[in-house]
């Protein structure tokens, strides 16, 4: 497990123009990659060139430009699917991971309204398992399912150190459990969950498994099949790709059984005034004009990641992340959310500073050019569970360096003094 050399880092950083920006007179130190990652120049250039030179209607035209755009779009899907270990037709494009999870939750609600298909329909008293560490995106949609159907939300606890054990999930599984939804990595804790083991246990209990893989997508090799889940959700903008596009992976069976949610053009075979027939996945979930340039941009982004090497990126971030964790932990009056003992972590650390509110911490860091995330990071219940309203988070990307960490840690050490605590 080794970090990039200075030369390697310099080459990577040269691809990300935003890193040359100054913030409040300091060179930008971007430690907010878990919220949204910066964009590599090559992929953005390809996307805008495509928009300017190759725009045309996908799946709808006989003319050359349209045929070329359709091919480019299909190729982009194949490239992205290949990157995450999926077949092209098992990866549905969405707007973001939130919409991916919602597609499944809405399919459940629509199926429940009519009682079919049975494997998607929930009934009063059925149970949905989530965990204490979920992002709102993987919690609120299930609450709405429960509210409509009378199903019950069961919450698998995390330890005080933020660890989600297989046992914790098992402890809330019951005969009535129909869905188990959890994240591969919490965006607050940075701990890699035993995703495969949990999925196996849940599926053995006959439930559907939905994995929120947002924080795994570019910080290690995301292999959607390896989770053993029914559905996996992720977003392009958390893996150096464009905003406005994400994906839902599903097993062939799950996607075939899943009822359509959004309907319209390009997902149909035959339309009469009173009924229509639908194409198979992924088309059946992608009505209307597709996210053409976004798919192109995302595909070129993952090609770039492949060039650098996903395993190398993961090793770099993990090693640097461990140093960052240790350095932050060493600062007096800092409490870290999420243990580093006996767990595998990604390059991310959230913490509270005694006596200084995270909003003030963030503002102080910002004055020194450091972009950190403050707040509840869309995980209010987890914060409450861990006894805080909010926290400050440092998260690394492929372009992060030891200097970034050193600058941020040094600033952190000064925060309390600035706010008159000592």
């Amino acid at each position: 497990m080794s970090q990039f050399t200075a030369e390697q880092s310099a080459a990577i950083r040269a691809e990300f123009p935003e890193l040359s920006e100054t913030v409040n007179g300091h060179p930008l130190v971007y430690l907010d990659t878990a919220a949204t990652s910066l964009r590599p120049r090559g992929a953005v250039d390809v996307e805008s060139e495509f928009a300017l030179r190759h725009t045309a209607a996908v799946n709808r035209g006989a003319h050359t430009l349209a045929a070329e755009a359709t091919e480019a779009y299909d190729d982009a899907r194949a490239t992205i699917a290949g990157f995450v270990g999926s077949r092209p037709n098992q990866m549905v494009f969405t707007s973001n991971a939130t919409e991916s999870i919602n597609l499944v939750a809405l399919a459940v609600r629509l199926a429940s309204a009519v009682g079919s298909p049975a494997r998607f329909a929930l009934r009063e008293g059925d149970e949905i398992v989530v965990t204490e560490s979920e992002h709102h995106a993987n919690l609120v949609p299930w609450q709405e399912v429960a509210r409509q159907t009378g199903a019950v939300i069961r919450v698998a606890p995390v330890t005080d150190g933020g660890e989600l054990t297989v046992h914790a999930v098992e402890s809330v599984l019951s005969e009535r459990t129909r869905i188990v939804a959890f994240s591969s990595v919490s965006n607050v804790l940075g701990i890699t969950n035993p995703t495969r083991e949990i999925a196996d246990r849940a599926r053995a209990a006959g439930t559907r498994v939905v994995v929120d893989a947002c924080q795994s997508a570019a910080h290690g090799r995301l292999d959607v099949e390896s989770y053993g889940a029914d559905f996996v959700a992720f977003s392009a903008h958390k893996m150096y790709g464009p905003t406005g596009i994400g994906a839902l992976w599903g097993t062939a069976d799950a996607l075939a059984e899943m009822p359509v949610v959004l309907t319209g053009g390009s997902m149909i075979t035959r339309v009469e005034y009173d009924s229509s027939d639908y194409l198979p996945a992924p088309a059946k979930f992608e009505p209307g004009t597709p996210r053409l340039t976004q798919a192109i941009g995302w595909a070129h982004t993952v090609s770039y990641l492949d060039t650098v090497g996903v395993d190398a990126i993961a090793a770099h971030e993990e090693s640097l992340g461990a140093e960052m964790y240790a350095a932050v932990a060493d600062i007096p009056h800092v409490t870290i959310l999420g243990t580093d003992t006996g767990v595998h972590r990604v390059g991310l650390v959230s913490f509270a500073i005694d006596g200084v509110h995270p909003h003030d911490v963030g503002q102080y860091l910002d004055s020194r050019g450091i972009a950190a995330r403050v707040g509840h990071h869309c995980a209010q219940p987890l914060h409450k569970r861990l006894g805080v309203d909010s926290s400050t988070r440092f998260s690394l990307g492929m372009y992060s360096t030891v200097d970034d960490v050193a600058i941020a840690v040094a600033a952190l050490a000064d925060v309390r003094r600035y706010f008159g605590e000592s």
Partner: protein
Amino acid sequence: MQLDDLYQQIILDHNKKRAGYGLNEGGFPSHQYNPTCGDEITLTVRLSDDGETITAFEWEGSGCSISQASASLMTSEATGMSVADFERFANGFREAMRSRGTIVLPEEEFGDLAALSGVSKFVARVKCAMLAWVAAEDSLLLTQESRN
């Protein structure tokens, strides 16, 4: 933008001292919440018997130094004002906060609250400074409605 424009010493002091902190029973508390950061405040405005004068602000909550100091400074500066004056006062404060640095709160009128002038340059923090004021206006409304 200079950080010290935002965090003047008065603010840091009020973040600790927190005038008016502590809620008593009764009255018409208003609860306000900032969904972005989770900050919250519950505040009760107390009126004189004739309903014309603000006799006290009582509040509790958690949040950043700006939100806490703003509540404390409002308590210090506005306690004893007539309701009509307070409404004008709150409007003036809001206008300055939204001015993106173009309006400085005059010390003659706003006293130590003038220290919050710098907030208006930090657009993301305006909500923090306003939290207590929104609660006060809301509590005032509830109180007045109860009298009609």
